[in-house]
């Protein structure tokens, strides 16, 4: 098949088309720029649905493979190798889904250098898609590091008052992890004679003592990205300073690059080391769950509260992944999607109110429900989804993860799952605390303040564009909460295959 007509190639690089068009639109035609970016990302989402249509859920292996020799001189064996399977399909869909939503959310909030913003955003989408689809370690590393660049600009140019500090911290922190992974990738490439992930997994001959080091090097890159406690300190800065769209993508997709990395590379390439590390990762994940929840509760800034809640939620994902059984992993993958939807939606909602009030201080809010009933209702649904109310998406993920963690042979200690279950309760505490402070009780001072500055026009409710942004997310929140079966069905065969590999190792080691 023609190189550029491969479905996955097309899906990854389609945003380039939009970028090229953007270059030819004058910078002052802001709406034209916005529409171009939006339509490009919508078509990309359409392409991801097309890929879903061709995807055979019962096949656990890589599908729609695009594989060509790329650099094969001088002892190199690097391939252009894209493929999709049950581990990545949902994340690809999530990326395709959240990008147009984020672009739509910038309609009125990004007025400065719109063209640059849209270019960086589309570049970011290419990078993220590439990370989820690349099956060659070199190609993967290129996409992985590349995602840093546009996000760095998005935070640094369009972010809040401390944006430069946050952007550099984000960049250096993440790069610190990835360069260690680079060395591990090189070692694997030299040792295995190929950078292709499926081939390296099939060889399965990495000596156990080296596996530990390689596992750590990969884990350093991914754990910073997730972020796992105690490597999370870049996250609150980056999330708070980033513009809304940046926060949505950062929380919605980019954190999942880390968890996905663990799933695809650590679990597959280093099974022995994985089994040995499982209890330790579970420990860090549990600390992260409790710590993230406790720190969230202490925040006075709404955005920071949501940011820290990510540390807690991603702790659940890590716990599920390293349960190393089918339930835990399936729950973890679903929870990645759930977190992308719920936390993404929370950031969007916080951004919508911030655009009007220009403050995120919890104490100045209050009694908003009366003023903005639609906003309040949507916020309530999203908040309940984030804290894991049965019937909404968060519950399905967290429940499956905890089930997996309790029965996990690899973690081999129900104490982690028991403590983590407390995290669900703590989530209810900080989420409801936030909701109560903002929407209930006496009217906060901000309501009058906005009225004064706006010459009598107070805080308005959501407009049609904002509702249009939220509705697709709400539909998914209910869909996953009420009928998650199709989502599990997509990933189950691939997860089961991975679990089977790992349980052979577990049995051999115990």
């Amino acid at each position, binding site marked *: 098949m023609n190189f550029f007509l491969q479905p996955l190639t097309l899906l990854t690089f389609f945003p380039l088309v939009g970028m090229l068009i953007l270059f030819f639109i004058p910078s002052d035609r802001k709406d034209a720029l916005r529409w171009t970016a939006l339509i490009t990302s919508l078509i990309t989402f359409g392409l991801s649905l097309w890929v879903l249509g061709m995807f055979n859920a019962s096949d656990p292996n890589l599908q729609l493979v695009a594989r060509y020799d790329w650099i094969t001189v*001088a002892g190199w064996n690097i391939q252009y190798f894209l493929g999709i399977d049950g581990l990545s399909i949902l994340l690809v869909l999530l990326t395709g889904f959240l990008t147009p939503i984020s672009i739509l959310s910038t309609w009125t909030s990004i007025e400065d*250098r719109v063209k*640059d913003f849209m270019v960086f955003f589309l570049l970011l989408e290419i990078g993220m898609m590439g990370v989820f689809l690349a099956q060659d370690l070199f190609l993967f*590393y*290129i996409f992985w590091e590349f995602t840093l660049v546009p996000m760095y600009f998005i935070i640094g140019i369009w972010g809040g008052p401390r944006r430069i500090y946050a952007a550099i911290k984000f960049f250096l922190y993440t790069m610190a992890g990835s*360069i260690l992974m680079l060395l591990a990738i*090189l070692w694997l490439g030299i040792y295995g004679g190929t950078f292709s992930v499926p081939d390296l997994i099939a060889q399965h001959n990495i000596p156990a003592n080296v596996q530990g080091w390689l596992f750590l090097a990969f884990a350093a890159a991914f754990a910073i990205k997730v972020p796992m406690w105690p490597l999370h300190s870049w996250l609150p800065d980056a999330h708070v300073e980033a513009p809304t769209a940046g926060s949505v993508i950062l929380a919605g997709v980019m954190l999942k690059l880390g968890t996905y990395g663990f799933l695809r590379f650590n679990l597959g390439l280093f099974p022995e080391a994985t089994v040995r590390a499982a209890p330790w990762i579970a420990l860090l994940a549990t600390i992260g769950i409790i710590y993230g929840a406790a720190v969230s509760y202490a925040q006075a800034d709404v955005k920071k509260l949501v940011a820290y809640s990510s540390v807690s939620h991603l702790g659940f994902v890590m716990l599920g992944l390293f349960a190393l059984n089918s339930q835990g992993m399936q729950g973890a993958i679903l929870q990645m999607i759930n977190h992308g939807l719920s936390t993404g939606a929370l950031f969007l909602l916080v951004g919508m109110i911030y655009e009007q009030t220009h403050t995120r201080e919890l104490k100045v809010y209050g009694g908003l429900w009366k003023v903005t009933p639609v906003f309040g209702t949507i916020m309530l649904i999203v908040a309940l989804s984030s804290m894991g109310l049965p019937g909404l998406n968060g519950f399905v993920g967290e429940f499956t993860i905890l089930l997996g963690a309790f029965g996990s042979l690899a973690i081999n200690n129900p104490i982690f799952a028991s403590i983590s279950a407390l995290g669900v309760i703590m989530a209810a505490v900080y989420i409801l605390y936030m909701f109560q402070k903002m929407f209930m009780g006496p009217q906060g001072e901000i309501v009058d303040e906005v009225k004064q500055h706006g010459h009598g026009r107070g805080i308005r409710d959501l407009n049609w564009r904002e509702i249009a942004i939220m509705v697709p997310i709400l539909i998914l929140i209910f869909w996953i909460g009420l009928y998650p079966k199709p989502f599990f069905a997509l990933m189950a065969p691939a997860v089961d295959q991975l679990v089977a590999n790992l349980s052979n190792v577990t049995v051999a080691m115990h």
Partner: protein
Amino acid sequence: MTLTDISFSTIWPLAFLTVWACVLLLIDLFIPKDRKGITALLAALGLALTLGFTLTQIGMQQTGFMGMVVADGFSTFVNALLLVSGLLGVALAYGYVKRMGLERGEYYTLLLFSVTGMMLMAQAADLIVVFLALELLSIPLYVLAAFARPNIESEEAGIKYFLLGAFATGFVVYGTALVFGATGMTNLSAIVTAASNGTSNLLLLSIGSALILVGLGFKIAVVPFHMWTPDVYQGAPSAVTAFMSSGAKIAGFAALLRVFATAFPSIASDMTGIFWALAALTMILGNVIAISQTNIKRLLAYSSIAHAGYILMAFVPYGNPDVAPVSIAAGLFYLVAYAITNFGAWGVVIALEKSEGRGLEIGDYAGLARKHPALAAPMAVFMLSLIGLPPTIGLVGKFYLFRAVIAGGFTGLAIIGVLTSLISAYYYLRVVVIMYMRDGEPETEHEAFLDLTTILTAVATVVISLVPQFLFAWASNAVLKLF
């Protein structure tokens, strides 16, 4: 001696360029003062023709002048790179010297003579020729560094470069004398024979080769022989610095690679530790000191020191015959990556420089992205490439280099390499931060050749990273012939 011993075909591109430079010196007398651009174009034409001739030497494997010079894959690769550097050097200087009031025809002739010295360096197969080439490439550079006279900084740069350079040359001469004393030979392949059949004094040979390393180490600015670099790079006219920081480095590394890989493999076990330490020291010191720089020329000077450290990594495994070809090819590839990126970055510096050294603080770059995106975007690409981030040639170069070092078993050095890259990210990103995230009113010069150079190098930086095959193949063929 018969004519066949001479094998003139080995050096004919080099000879052509020398003659061209001499003739240009004469022609320049008849070119009116206000039209020295013609000299520049003629110089560029000479370089371009020589580049064409050099490319016809691909596949040649022959010594000439009774083994004094050699034309092989290695020399062809390096010469091609040097000639491209010369062309870029002329392109960057074209508008710059006019604007700064330095437009004198000698500029381009001196540049051509320096290129001939560099080319001779790449072809040298005898330590005497190495010395000769070193002088031929350096003396024009001393003059060029002081070309902005009576500007005091430029004069200081010239004299400083001259004094330390002369001192360094002394080391090379003394080292050559000791090697001659140890083996009775100055010819590289004869030294190998003498060293391997046990007729030589190995201690003397080691000391001699170490002294040569010191002398060449000055030229390529390796710590602890780097002290002159920041002052000279800052004081010399920017167009000269751009050429010097790439060209002299390429030539110096070519000589080091040639001398150490062909002549001294027998003492590799002694030298590996020294190269290891020099590479580590250079990477650490160069990158750490660069953090505190506020002048863009000094920043790039320290960055150039740091990159010398990365290239030096390629020498560390040279004693291991399995890895040596790969690591030297990696070194060559990295030189290409560095040269392209470096020229581009200096191009942007030149575009922002004003007379009397204004416009050279990093703070002067504030707001560049808004006012001149066509300069800011290439500069951002160059900075990413110097850090080693995708999608740039800098990443591919580092990937290739670290792979060779790890394959050689020097993982510790590779870890130092990546950690110092992380440090470098901080100061390179600061340039990007200031261009993109601070507001200001930068003034820039737009000159056709300058803009063309920055855009072309930026495009090359990205495109070659996506299709590096042909360069990989060329670089690795270049060294296969060396052994």
